[in-house]
């Protein structure tokens, strides 16, 4: 499938980003006989999904984090995917149907990580490709820009992603860092999402189910823990979440109305003020920890690459899904969950294959 002529390495498709979407897109392309160059900035595959913990209690709670591991394993067996880790796209130019791509070593990456799933070139490489799929993912909303929520001021205000890290690290001991598990935990939904004022008038899609699963996991690990979820409008999707929510209502308090203030006393813990059951403002309530359900925001990388490849017109600062030969898929287009990103990436791969198979012979064709 390599383009003949010249010694310059070539591939059919460049995929930028080796997270859930990038891996799925690479697999889908390789399955149908295309050569893929997969460029990932970090020195490991997986992106943010690799940082998630399993949310299973007695049974699987469909958090889908393990789908990533399955996908990485499967990708190892595909000969036609060339993986570059610790690498970024530096330049791109287009001549006719061909893109000239310069990739090079990424700066500011954790070099202690051993790149297991691909190679890490020490110098620039120039590649020719015929199509591009951006799978550059999302950034987590920076909660410290909401100072009333105390994030960054106190160790007792954390994000859902950080709670995932804690659970991943502490296994079934759950949440103890020397001092034992907290006895009262409050979740705060929609941090950074649904903010018309900040130009983010969108729902981040996943946070309600993320918090629900985290709350469920904590309740499972620590049955005595008091857990409150402050929300605006609970989004009980995908469908498995709905029944899970119903079963959790006995253990977890779901309270409409999000806190306007999280006070962080120097001695630790948090004091939360929010709307009470009866619609009035509550007396401040003390919790040991507050967990902010931070939303997904467009990443800076995405913006840069979107400009480089001329992907315009996305909403809220995300990139548009594009059209062949330049597409984008996954959470750089809009917030999605893991299965949603996989499906989106597979679909994008299919669009690209169908577009470029017009002038190329594709396997089974």
């Amino acid at each position, binding site marked *: 499938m390599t383009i003949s002529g010249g010694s310059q390495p070539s591939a059919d498709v460049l995929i930028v980003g080796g997270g859930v979407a990038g891996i799925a897109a690479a697999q889908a392309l390789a399955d149908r006989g295309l050569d893929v160059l997969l460029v990932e900035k970090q020195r490991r595959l997986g992106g943010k999904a690799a940082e998630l913990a399993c949310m299973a209690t007695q049974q699987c709670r469909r958090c889908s984090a393990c789908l990533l591991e399955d996908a990485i394993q499967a990708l190892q067996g595909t000969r036609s995917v060339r993986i570059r880790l610790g690498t970024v796209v530096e330049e791109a130019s287009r001549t006719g149907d061909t893109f000239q791509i310069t990739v090079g070593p990424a700066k500011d990456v954790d070099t202690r990580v051993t790149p297991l799933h691909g190679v890490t070139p020490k110098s620039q490489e120039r590649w020719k490709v015929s199509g591009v799929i951006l799978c550059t993912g999302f950034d987590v909303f920076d909660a410290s820009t909401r100072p009333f929520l105390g994030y960054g001021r106190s160790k007792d205000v954390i994000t859902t992603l950080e709670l995932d890290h804690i659970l991943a690290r502490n296994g079934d001991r759950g949440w103890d860092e020397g001092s034992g598990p907290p006895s009262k935990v409050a979740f705060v939904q*929609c941090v950074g999402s*649904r903010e*018309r004022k900040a130009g983010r008038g969108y729902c981040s899609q996943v946070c309600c189910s993320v918090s629900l699963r985290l709350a469920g996991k904590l309740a499972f690990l620590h049955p005595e823990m008091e857990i409150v979820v402050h929300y*605006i409008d609970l989004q009980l999707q995908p469908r498995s979440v709905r029944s899970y929510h119903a079963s959790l209502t006995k253990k977890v308090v779901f309270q409409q109305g999000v*806190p*306007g203030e999280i006070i962080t006393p120097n001695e630790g813990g948090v004091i939360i003020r929010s*709307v009470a059951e009866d619609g*009035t*403002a*509550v007396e401040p309530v003390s919790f040991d920890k507050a967990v902010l359900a931070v939303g997904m925001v467009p990443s800076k990388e995405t913006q840069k690459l979107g400009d480089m490849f001329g992907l315009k017109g996305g909403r809220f600062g995300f990139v548009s899904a594009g059209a062949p030969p330049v597409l984008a898929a996954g959470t750089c287009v809009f917030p999605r969950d893991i299965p949603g990103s996989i499906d989106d990436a597979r679909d994008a791969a299919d669009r690209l294959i169908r577009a470029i198979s017009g002038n190329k012979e594709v396997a089974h064709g």
Partner: protein
Amino acid sequence: MIALGENSLEMYKDVSQEEDFKFCMTCGICIAGCPASRADPPLLIRNLVRKVILGQEDDLLNDDTPWTCVTCSRCEEVCPQDVKPFEMGLAIRQWQCKNDETRLPPSLVELYKRGYTQAVDKSQELRAQVGMKDKLPTITEYPDLLEKYQKMLMQIEIIKANDYMFGG
């Protein structure tokens, strides 16, 4: 009881010409950090905005809570939807005044007569005690300006309509 009367659904237009408040999604963040939400009865600005949207005229007319606002504008800062709750609070006060003259702050008289609610002009003694000899250049020191100022205010309908308060 929330019921919709003849004009309930148009009422919001009397309160504010702005559109932003319609975006309220009742998240409650405005109430949650509001100092006056601790008053008794509490100021619940989200609920006031909702009452405007639902046109609960009688309820709103009799509501004293908009007047307990500390005016810190914190709600305005934290509102994710840019509803501008603080300005809605003021708009509700204005609407109340327009529909019920007993709502007009008595300070209107002082404001009209001397430009100030505080007796700034009578502060000279205290100021002298801390070493300031010069008089404060407030409007009371300039009768011609005061007259113009009053003339300006008289162009405002609600002030003119209640000019009996100034004792003629």
